[in-house]
């Protein structure tokens, strides 16, 4: 373990006090840690903004979505994030991370994150709330990032 004698380490530690990505996703991680049972459910995920362009499972989990489908779903997520209550904002943030994962896996590119490091944090945070097929999709996206060298050590 480090003794943090250099300024760069000190700065990086202080930076850890900020939110790494969408602050709502940090709340999602905290819910997962506490196990308070208020995480977005599978039916809420599949019936939420991801379903705006059609069947969310077919489009985004199985990979049939076109560019327009991503854009429609993303717009619906952003609208919910802007107007929804706390639970709906968490659903929106998790849904955006799912779209990001789907885009990385099936289109080979990020949808919303500015950097690979942002994408890595977004996916990992969302994954703490997901189970089943959606969790496998996000885990695949994280592996794909590593495989293409996207999440290189760049802090």
């Amino acid at each position, binding site marked *: 373990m480090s003794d943090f004698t250099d300024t760069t380490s000190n*700065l990086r530690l*202080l930076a850890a006090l900020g939110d790494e990505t969408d602050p709502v996703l940090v709340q999602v*991680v905290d819910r997962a*840690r506490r196990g308070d049972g208020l995480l977005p459910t599978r039916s809420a995920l599949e019936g939420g903004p991801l379903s705006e362009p059609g069947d969310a499972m077919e489009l985004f989990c199985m990979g049939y979505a076109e560019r327009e489908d991503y854009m429609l779903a993303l717009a619906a997520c952003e609208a919910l994030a802007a107007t929804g209550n706390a639970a709906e904002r968490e659903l929106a943030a998790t849904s955006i991370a799912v779209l990001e994962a789907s885009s990385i896996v099936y289109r080979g590119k990020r949808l919303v994150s500015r950097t690979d490091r942002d994408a*890595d944090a977004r996916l990992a*945070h969302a994954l703490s709330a997901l189970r089943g097929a959606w969790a496998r999709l996000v885990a695949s996206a*994280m592996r794909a990032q590593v495989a293409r060298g996207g*999440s290189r050590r760049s802090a």
Partner: protein
Amino acid sequence: MPISPKAMHNRDLTSTTQKSSKRDSFPATQRGWLVAQLAQGSAGNARINAYIMETYTEPLGNYVAGSSFRSLGQPKDLVSGFFASRLAQAGYFEKWIDSGLPLRRWLINGFLFFLQEEARRRKSERIDTLSDESSFEPVADVSSAAEEFDRVWAASMVRSAASAARERCVQEGFETHWEMFEKHFVGGVSYAEIAESFEVSGGQAASMVRTASIRFRQAVVDLLLKDGATEDELDDEIARLMRALRP
């Protein structure tokens, strides 16, 4: 038999659920700790002095070692002399509370004053003995000295907070969580790579890193509150310290 990271993550979830979210919240004090100690008389004063010496000796010593005052003597001796001359003064910390300054600013102001006094005293001693010697008297610009002290204090504070948070993680059985936290935030290793090397899921990696980062945040907040920041000022203080640390 060693406990696997997965089992530790599950234990972490159980532990945090049982102990409620209260421990994740900020302590509800501002200058409260020092004020409460002052109200306890000599026992409280002794605790304050011990805290001040433990927390501020290193940054004050680092400051003087990098300043023109280093010619006055060993940094450790100068800091000890400062503490000896000031901490026993009646009403020293009551004056700090009245000043409204962060404690570190109060101490560096006092330390500069002490160093100037010390420089003058030595100069007059030399003049008495060697009247033709022109003596160098170090001077300090209070504003730049405060900036420089912010930098050395920030580095010292971050190290202390990291040490306290690491110790707490170890005590609570979250050593692996701290190791992941360091790898991610200091080493820049991605969650995906951490998940792979520790054989946990990406979500578990994020959750375990978060467990350690909350403890680090609490340690930083605790030190900032003791230094005199109010809860409303914490984010600004952290931003100020980050600016001070930037090269």
